[in-house]
């Protein structure tokens, strides 16, 4: 069935739970997994550029460190399950586009993600990123709660 499962994670508990389910499914199907973390780029404003330039470096360093941390967590889960797992993070304003692009480039045939991440209101609304991924995705998406 599925051969390469994309696990987009924003580091929230829900996204890690979704990743866990994706890993379990991958194990049963004999699939590989690909964990992706999308980092929002630092938005610079036109004035106070010098101050902002300094903060941007800190921001990027922090964001990269966080990305590594989340991805390591997923990699550990995959290793425990004995799965081949590659990970990556990208800077993108629009996470859903980065997710869809990664699915295409990595030839994934399934994406497993949480119904909402950090930003979604608990269960009241479907997370906006999930919604957008569902609309544009070329592959099936397994939405977990």
């Amino acid at each position: 069935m599925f051969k390469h499962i994309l696990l987009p994670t924003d580091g929230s508990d829900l996204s890690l739970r979704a990743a866990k389910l994706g890993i379990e499914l991958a194990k049963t199907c004999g699939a590989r997994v690909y964990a992706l973390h999308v980092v929002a780029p630092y938005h610079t404003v036109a004035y106070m550029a010098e101050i902002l330039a300094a903060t941007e470096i800190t921001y990027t360093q922090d964001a990269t460190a966080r990305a590594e941390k989340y991805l390591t967590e997923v990699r550990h889960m995959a290793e425990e399950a004995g799965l081949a797992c590659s990970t990556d993070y990208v800077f993108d304003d629009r996470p859903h586009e980065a997710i869809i692009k990664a699915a295409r480039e990595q030839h994934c045939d399934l994406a497993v993600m949480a119904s909402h991440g950090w930003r979604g209101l608990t269960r009241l609304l479907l997370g906006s990123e999930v919604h957008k991924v569902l609309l544009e995705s070329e592959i099936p998406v397994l939405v977990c709660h």
Partner: protein
Amino acid sequence: MFKHILLPVDGSGLSLQAADIGIELATSLGARVHALHVLPPFPAATYFAAIAEANETMYIERAIAGAERVLAEVRQRAQASGVSSEGSYVIDNRPDCAITVAVGKYQCDLIAMATHGWRGIERLLLGSVTQAVLQAASVPVLVCR
């Protein structure tokens, strides 16, 4: 992993494609499937009740015949893949409610459905039923395009 997959089908080509993916997944996981078709009730107007009554019987007969056709189609596909399958239809004007109720009733642990059915506008919007199910479901939902 998943043991019993609910396949809500409205008879549209997309819903049957989603059922196919659900069946294929069931094959590789050794799961059973349950196909569900939800019929909207006859919108009886309060006046002209007598005429409406006669039409309602006809409407229901036709709708049930349609439901059985759709369910037979899914059963056939499941049988072809060697997956144990059941099917049922319910009359409900809120398909999403009927679907979430069925999850509990048949103890399904996954729902596989299309991004939209007959009513959805081609990929521009997520089908309203799918969206409502995503918000209300207690189990993961595999959304297929």
